[in-house]
């Protein structure tokens, strides 16, 4: 293994990794907004809103993520949008993440015990107060693990950008491999792929650690002493 391959291109990899991180953060942000909106609508009392939201959610969940990446990239101009590889990756990850996140949010809201809402009603608390002060705070904690799982998948899926030419970490790796093979020969593939596999492993592990902390923070008052 030729480690200098990594050290020589450290700056390049860093740049690519920064793009990966950017795609990831943007996708998580947009997914969260979408999933809160759609998750809320999917639990609403109004029939057609609920059904409509569920249908849209199902559609984006059923199609392979890689297909929606391609679809957003090649299909955006049909809707008058001009999306480059990076934007297309972010948009498709957000739509997919939003759809899956909405399901999680819906599950979280439904999982708050019914008698919590009934206690509120029995105490004469208004519905909207009950939703924001009683239901939402309790829905957050059980949702965290599932949401963290979603974030992990989003993190991993940033690599799909490579297929439409966003120079994130995987594409960067491929560029380094091509260049290095052209100028220096050899088989740089295995070294570089091992390297980025480790980078993703580290990032994923870090993310999991973070969520476990988060779970503790939110879990504190409800856990048995």
């Amino acid at each position: 293994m030729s480690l200098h391959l990594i050290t020589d291109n450290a700056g390049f990899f860093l740049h690519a990794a920064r793009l990966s991180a950017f795609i990831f953060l943007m996708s998580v942000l947009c997914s969260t907004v979408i999933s809160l909106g759609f998750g809320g609508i999917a639990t609403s009392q109004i029939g057609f809103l609920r059904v409509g939201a569920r249908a849209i959610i199902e559609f984006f969940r059923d199609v392979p993520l890689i297909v929606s990446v391609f679809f957003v990239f090649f299909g955006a101009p049909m809707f008058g949008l001009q999306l480059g590889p990076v934007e297309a990756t972010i948009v498709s990850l957000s739509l997919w993440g939003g759809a899956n996140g909405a399901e999680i949010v819906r599950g979280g809201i439904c999982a708050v015990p019914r008698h919590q809402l009934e206690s509120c009603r029995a105490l004469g608390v208004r519905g909207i107060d009950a939703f924001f002060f009683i239901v939402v705070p309790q829905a957050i904690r059980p949702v965290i693990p599932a949401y963290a799982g979603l974030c992990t998948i989003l993190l991993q899926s940033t690599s799909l950008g490579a297929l439409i030419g966003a120079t994130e970490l995987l594409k960067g790796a491929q560029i380094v491999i091509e260049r290095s093979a052209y100028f220096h020969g050899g088989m740089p593939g295995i070294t570089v792929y091992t390297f980025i596999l480790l980078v993703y492993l580290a990032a994923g592990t870090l993310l999991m650690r973070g969520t476990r902390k988060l779970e503790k923070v939110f879990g504190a008052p409800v856990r048995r002493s």
Partner: protein
Amino acid sequence: MTGTFFDWHYLWDATPLLLTGLRLTVVLACACIAASIAIGYIGVTILFLEVPVLRRLVRGYIALFRSTPLLVQIFFFYFGLPEIGVRVDALTSGIIVLSLWGGAYQLENLRGAVDSLPRRLIEAARSLGLHPLRTYCFIILPVATRTVVPAMMNTAVSTTKNSALLTAIGVPELTYVAMDNIANSARGLENFFALFVGYLIIVAVMSCMSSLVEARLGRGFAR
């Protein structure tokens, strides 16, 4: 994009090619799902019986495959396997990676199900003087399997959908065929339509099957 907005004629001409892709996707899915479920059962048995060294290997395997991108795994194996002397074509390499990936998830599903079995159930078997191995085979695994079916089906669907990633190493499955068509003809709309329909059919068939399996296994089980 050019000419008529949606060209049925083009789609009709492209259908035979797309169907070969669809067929390969189905074959890939079947092979990988079967293999991944097998891996799941073997792995959970190793974990449950606490086989000394293998247990750690299984843990590492789960961690590695669950926390790195499948796409990177696909490339890694495609170029990595030959380095250790295993010569396989893209299809075989793809099946191996996808099975290992799905296996890690199926293993987690099963582990979760086994862990969340009521402790009473196991204790009841113990207090009847039942041999641990028989307890595992006849009580724990069957009951866990019933609770794990929905999760297992979810993972199976993900495995099927992720077979699309094998496009990247040139496995001519459905997505590959469609994307190749687009690169050649820039006919996005028709090909994406075909893709959506293809995957929706597969996913719909799988959900039906999963309901059937659940109903069958659940007979006399759920309240």
